[in-house]
């Protein structure tokens, strides 16, 4: 019985870490610009698919990974420069539709340039599982959880303790005031897209040995990531992590103890209830500061 409980816990943590990594990118772009970037899921997909393509072209793993991350960063910056910036000052939904369009463009291009099959990537350290008191967790799952925490620490440090990070937060609080003290808002937005694209790519490469990847995976990853980020207060990086883990655990325990048919529905109902209790998400009190 307790082994069963542990197994549900491990499954929830592994899946939750995947959602959390996807949610982190949303949180970052939102905290820098107030834009909800619905192309985030496609950054995740692009990072993983680019790695697959580069490995297929004969590059070794340690070379393919950084190149794929750089490709994704470049695409993220192009998206900001060519699609989001020209629409500067438009309503939030206009920007949402633009990022959806960017996502479709990325997805449509990957499908033609690479392929439409499902792929996997090598696990770090060869894979395998760890047995803890009769329950199993894959080593790759541990890597995902570890890197997720590392990312949130780095992002937190960047936003709170570096000048650029502080400038980025300043822009999101008050664009005009930030401009008056000499911050260039456009550069901050560009940087937030670059970082979230990098986070997406790293996430994609890490989760692929567990979840597999195809050109079409980005939409669903993006949706779960959005839910994770919104649950955590949207502009809040640690909140996105907690949101992702909570979502993963909800799904896993519902599937285990209630019904595998209605696990996503139960998770959604609980999330909506959370909103009623804390109208600003789990980290409501802090949301006005946007970490």
């Amino acid at each position: 019985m307790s082994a069963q409980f542990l197994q549900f816990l491990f499954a929830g943590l592994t899946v939750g870490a995947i959602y959390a990594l996807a949610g982190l990118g949303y949180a970052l772009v939102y905290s820098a610009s107030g834009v909800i970037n619905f192309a985030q899921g496609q950054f995740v997909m692009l990072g993983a698919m680019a790695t697959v393509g580069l490995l297929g072209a004969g590059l070794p793993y340690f070379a393919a990974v950084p190149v794929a991350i750089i490709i994704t960063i470049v695409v993220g910056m192009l998206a900001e420069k060519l699609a989001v910036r020209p629409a500067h000052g438009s309503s939030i939904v206009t920007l949402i539709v633009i990022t959806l369009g960017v996502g479709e463009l990325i997805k449509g291009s990957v499908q033609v340039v690479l392929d439409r099959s499902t792929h996997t990537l090598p696990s770090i350290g060869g894979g395998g599982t760890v047995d803890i008191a009769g329950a199993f967790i894959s080593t790759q799952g541990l890597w995902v959880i570890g890197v997720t925490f590392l990312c949130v620490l780095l992002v937190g440090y960047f936003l709170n303790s570096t000048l650029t990070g502080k400038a980025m937060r300043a822009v999101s609080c008050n664009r005009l005031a930030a401009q008056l003290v000499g911050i260039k808002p456009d550069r901050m937005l560009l940087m937030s897209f670059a970082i979230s694209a990098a986070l997406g790519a790293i996430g994609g490469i890490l989760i692929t040995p567990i979840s597999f990847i195809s050109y079409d995976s980005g939409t669903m990853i993006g949706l779960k990531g959005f839910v994770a980020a919104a649950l955590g207060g949207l502009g809040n990086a640690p909140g996105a992590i907690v949101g992702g883990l909570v979502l993963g655990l909800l799904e896993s325990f519902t599937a285990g103890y209630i019904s595998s048919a209605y696990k996503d529905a139960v998770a959604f109902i609980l999330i909506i209830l959370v909103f009623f209790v804390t109208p600003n998400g789990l980290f409501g009190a802090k949301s006005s500061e946007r970490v």
Partner: protein
Amino acid sequence: MLKTLGNIVGAAIVAGLLTTSTYAQEEPIKLGIVLSTSGPVGFLGAAEENALDMLVHQVNEEGGINGRQIEMIAYNDNSDAAQANTFTQRLVNSDEVDLIIGGTISPIAMAMIPIVERGGVPYISVGGSLAIVDPVKKWVFKTPHTDRQVAQRMLMDLQDQGSQKIGVLFENSGFGQSGLKELKAYAGEYGVEIVAEEQFGTSDTDTTPQLTKIRDTAGVQAVVIFAGAGAPPAIATKSYANLGMKLPLYLPHSAVSPEYLALTAGAAEGARMPTALFVVRDAVPEDSAQKTIIEKFYTDYEERYGVVPPPFAANTYDAGLIAIDALKRTTSLDKAAIRDAIEETKDLVGLQGVFTMSPEDHHGLPFTSLKMFVVEDNQFKLLD
């Protein structure tokens, strides 16, 4: 309100531009195609379209059928039933095709059926569900093995292996749902009892909670993972291996593909699945009636596209063979005559088996054309 008119005219022009015409002496045969070459099942549709394209090219190069070239009008439904429905309307009413092949997955095939039935156009579906041809519909035929046949073949093997109590993990797609339904319906006949049933979503990345529950159910002797093609069967298999489960594992024919072996990378050792013989090229015996066509299919496809064809390509290839065979036996392009000819298909050797249709059977593949395979050393091996 000129924009209203403009749009209609625009749509009409586009419709005109898209019909590619091929020059021929006789009036060409118009073959309409609706496949999902993008979207979630785009990986199926792309190979399916390739196989048909190849077949049609070969026929046209050899001078066509009874002096007529085949003109292919192909649309991509983006894995969306509503779009498939529209494109079928377009094929029936605007392009006025003589017959239609398509419907990559069962829900899409089902969405196309009302239109071909109303429009009176012969339609060979490539979706898996039995519901497509049961009850029999006047204008509708289909090629791949049904989920019922696959379930029966699995149960037969479970019985042979002495597994009486099984747990089922199914994908909550149409394929998985009807797999469970058929397993339940026929389990009794083979002395098998389903003691646990769990499901998972197509985009889920982990199924260990569900499999843990099946594992912890008393008396389970074997596990069936009923999931469609692509990631889902591989995800579930990996969860199974991660839990260190050692019970006999069964999967449906959709899992038998090189992709499944690449994704599971050893996690599928010992898994058993029923599928058509052609899927594992090396396992086809020399004296098989299908040997020639199977070799031709693999050789031609690799030569034309430079890759090994995935098994789904056979769904449309066989549909194409049935269509060509029927068209050879008809002299006019009368749709009713083509329909009758398809219904009279007899002993047609295809990839998935030998097709013999009748007014009561618009599928025509016998259940015995499914063979049991097992994964050994990350390869599919034919059993017995």
